[in-house]
């Protein structure tokens, strides 16, 4: 076994193990952290494949952004550590996951299924047993990628569609956020007594405008200058 193969197996175990832990841990925050470990392992795969750009992109997007998003979302739920209720739709989820896995295995694996005379899958998959499957990326790989992205004959249209997709995602997010905010306001009104919901102690205090001629600006400034002193 080469060093690469050993590393591959180790990383695979880490990815799979943490992925299993993501769905089995009760503590939602821990689940999010295991997801981060899993993502990190995938970045490791990219490094093994000599695709440094994708490894860095994986770290930047999935660990730096998506997992933060997940953790923030986790903190929006009520019972982070004691989420005992099971998901009522887990059977459906399991079926969907199984189907997707089968399709992926058909697409990528070295076997095929014949349905009504048509062959699905790829029996003589080129990479299946070939040790040289992993070919080194060309030196200026990122530059070639960039050229392809902005060429209308290659990936120019998907590139622009990606921007539109991001725009649509933004619109959708804002729409959802409004709903959530509305609910938050309702809840805050409902339980003013117990203020565990909003522990942000550092809101910029909305002072009512003073009735007499006092200098509002000075009041603000003194608060800002509160801690210029350094440790």
């Amino acid at each position, binding site marked *: 076994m080469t060093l690469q193969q050993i590393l591959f197996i180790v990383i695979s175990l880490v990815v799979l193990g943490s992925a299993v832990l993501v769905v089995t841990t009760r503590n939602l*925050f821990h689940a999010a952290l295991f997801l981060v470990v899993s993502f990190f392992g995938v970045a490791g795969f990219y490094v093994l494949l000599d695709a440094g750009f994708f490894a860095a992109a994986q770290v930047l997007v999935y660990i730096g952004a998506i997992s933060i998003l997940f953790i923030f979302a986790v903190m929006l739920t009520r019972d982070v550590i004691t989420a005992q209720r099971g998901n009522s739709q887990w059977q459906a989820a399991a079926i969907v996951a199984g189907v997707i896995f089968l399709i992926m295995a058909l697409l990528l694996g070295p076997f095929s299924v014949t349905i009504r005379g048509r062959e699905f899958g790829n029996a003589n998959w080129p990479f299946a047993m070939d040790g040289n499957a992993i070919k080194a990326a060309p030196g200026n790989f990122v530059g070639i990628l*960039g050229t392809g*992205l902005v060429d209308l004959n290659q990936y120019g249209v998907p590139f622009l569609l990606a921007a539109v997709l*991001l725009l649509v995602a933004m619109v959708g997010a804002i729409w959802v956020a409004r709903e959530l905010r509305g609910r938050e306001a309702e809840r805050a009104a409902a339980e003013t007594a117990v203020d565990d*919901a909003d522990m942000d102690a550092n809101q910029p205090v909305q002072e009512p405008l003073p009735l007499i001629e006092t200098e509002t600006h000075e009041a603000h400034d003194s608060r800002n200058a509160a801690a210029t002193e350094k440790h």
Partner: protein
Amino acid sequence: MMLAAVLLMGFALVGASILRPKKPSKAKLETYECGMETVGDAWVQFRVQYYIFALIFVLFDVGGIFLFPFAVAYNSLPLYAIVIVILFILTLLGSLLYAWRKGVLQWD
């Protein structure tokens, strides 16, 4: 090399934290809250605002990553390619302006 660096720095730091002297500790393990008795866990529900900002960040992060390969190829690209990228960036700017318009960017 990158992998080696990761491994070794982790290793060095684990070593450092093993070196640390550990003394038996008493009732000083309470959560610090300026001397007040702590009420409940800190693990409570947070505001949705953080989530929204994280979402906007994800969008720009992904958009930015698309731009990096282009930037590397920039010197050898023809002029019309720039137009496509400008369209891309303007769409991103458009989504930011939309968020701004809807008052999402206001931290309160």
